[in-house]
């Protein structure tokens, strides 16, 4: 235990000497400032609607919800202007109201990339506004998890789970590899092997160092953005488990390579793959299996639940189970590859 504590002390001093504590604090501060002051609290991701209303057609739509549709749109005085506006905004649709023998009709102008489902849903929406689909409010609505609504979470706070996942939880992936490779380069590890302490303890000390930095970074970001009323137990468990497995993964990669530049590409590719589920975070209906099997998929949803939904543990349990499994797998891989760290091939 004493050996381990002295290794831990050495690792901390090394990180402080290399300004790592400063870097963690600086990046946490940057993220806090960006989340609080740069990312807007609301952003309208719905398609913009550019409208050219024919006056005669509008007269026939007086008893409908047309006015609400017009209020949501940007109105132009010709079809050409609508098209010109659409060419500058790839997330827009055009609506040209026409009059056919005293009855209204319309032309929906799409960008061209939309699939049929999206176009048909837009037609349904427009027909509803123009009074041809009667709104039916009589359906029974069953909400399976009351109180789990995230509708009122501002957008800037909604990105906090991603920030703490990508920065705090996964920081070990890169940084621990850099630290290990630097020690290999400076032959510190080879010198270390001649001491009574074993390499496994050294790697363990590095893991714990990364773990504590992950906690520090996450706590700062959460406290200064979301506040203190979160499920801290679940949040820290998820961050801790992720820090351990990502650090083990980083160590495994670093053990296999001789230099930082050669390890850099695998690390970047792994980081990008782990970051891929972020797409599903912003587009929840897009969740193919190859994204769902990524550990970061359940992690980001587990963090979102821990920060914003009280009384619910479903996603946390899923993420925690997956993370424990990965801790076992990657700890084993680290131990198996540790001999490479000492230069024994």
């Amino acid at each position, binding site marked *: 235990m004493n050996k381990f504590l002295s290794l831990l002390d050495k690792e901390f001093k090394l990180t402080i000497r*290399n300004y790592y504590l400063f870097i963690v604090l*600086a990046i946490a501060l*940057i993220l806090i400032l*960006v989340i609080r002051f740069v990312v807007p609290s609301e952003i309208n991701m719905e398609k913009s609607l550019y409208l050219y209303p024919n006056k005669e057609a509008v007269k026939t739509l007086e008893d409908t919800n047309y006015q609400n549709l017009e209020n949501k749109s940007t109105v132009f005085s010709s079809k050409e202007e609508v098209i010109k506006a*659409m060419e500058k905004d790839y*997330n827009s649709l*055009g609506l040209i109201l026409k009059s*056919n023998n005293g*009855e209204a*009709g*319309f*032309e*929906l102008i*799409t*960008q*061209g*990339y939309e*699939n049929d*489902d*999206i176009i*048909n*849903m837009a037609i349904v*929406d427009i*027909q*509803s506004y*123009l009074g041809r*689909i*009667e*709104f*039916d409010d009589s*359906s*029974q*609505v*069953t909400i*399976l*998890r009351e109180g789990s*609504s995230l*509708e009122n979470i501002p957008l800037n706070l909604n990105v906090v789970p991603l920030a703490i996942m990508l920065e705090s939880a996964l920081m070990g992936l*890169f*940084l621990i590899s*850099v630290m290990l*490779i*630097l020690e290999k380069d400076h032959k510190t590890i080879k010198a270390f092997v001649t001491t009574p302490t074993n390499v496994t303890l050294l790697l363990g000390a590095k893991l714990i160092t990364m773990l504590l930095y992950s906690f520090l970074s996450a706590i700062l970001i959460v406290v200064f953005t979301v506040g203190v009323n979160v499920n801290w137990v679940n949040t820290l468990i998820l961050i801790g488990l992720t820090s351990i497995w990502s650090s083990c993964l980083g160590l495994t990669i670093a053990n296999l*390579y*001789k*230099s*930082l*530049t*050669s390890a*850099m*590409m695998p690390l*970047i590719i792994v980081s990008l793959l782990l970051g891929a589920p972020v797409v*599903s975070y912003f587009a*929840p*209906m*897009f*969740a193919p299996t190859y994204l769902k099997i990524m550990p970061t*998929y*359940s992690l980001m*949803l587990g963090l979102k639940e821990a920060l914003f939904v009280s009384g619910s543990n479903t996603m946390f349990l899923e993420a925690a189970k997956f993370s424990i499994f990965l801790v076992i797998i990657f700890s084993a891989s680290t131990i198996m590859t540790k001999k490479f760290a000492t230069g024994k091939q």
Partner: protein
Amino acid sequence: MKRIISIFKRDVVVATRDFVLLYIIVAPILLALLLSVFAPDVADSSAIFVYDESLKETEINKLEEIGHVIKLNDKDEIITRVNDSDDVYGLIKNKDNYEIILEGNEAGNIEGLMKLVVSYLNSDKDNWLIYKISSIDFKLPPVVSIGTTSLIITSIILGGMIIGLNIVEDKEFSTINALNTSPLGKIEYILGKSVLGIILPIIHTPIVLKIMGLEGLKLTQLGFIVLVSSLFTIFYGLMIGTISSNQLSAIASAKGMMFVLAGSILGAIALKESLHYLLYWSPLYWIYQAIYKIVAGISTWRYLWISSGAIILITMILFGVLNKYQKKYNTL
């Protein structure tokens, strides 16, 4: 020139060890392959409805027109599926009344959307207003145009990182001190170090376009903007190499800068055009916009000249600041 080439050759020889050069060339190509698989799925995504036998065929056909449908055996299976981590919406019929089943944590006003869907199922299309669908023929989904642009920019930034790490490696092993005793000038050294970082995006760009199936683009314009962007690549690499004394701090400074750079790209994507003036300070904003417009097929030479001018002007100012820093702290 010979000295610049010999620095470049040395970097290539070092990079071929441990397959580094191979990784550097392959990584963005691998990412392009992944994106080309991924992008059609994103473009094809729409609402997913789960139902059981209580819905009639006519209702199911109508649902298929506005989304993907999954048939399950009973309400319990629907509840299990809706409770899954993604967003799917359950719809069943109890006698003559519809029941909408939602998890509760869906994004947006899904309850309102589902009531509209139910209203649609009850509607008679013969009463609908006559309509026509046309398009402005912009067939490139945003995930492809934005994704391809991001990949090209990744290659540009990767080039900069390689330059920076190479410089830091020379600092750590005192190679720079040894080189200072040679006739090699500082500018020659920087240019020699930069060649590999500049060549990479030029190699990657046509390969990425080919993988993404983007043909008929204005390659002259793209080549021009990638070449102009190499000024930023050199600055980024030099910044990392100048302010970092070791590889750990090089990674950290690259990471810190990445937030700033990524922010300007995300702003270009998410903000309305009227607010883009907030991003004019960032060379990466201009690089992104120029490449995006070329990929989307809406670029003009006028815009390219303006964006190139902005990239060059801002980057030269940044070089000036970096030069003052380097002179003050003698870090290179």
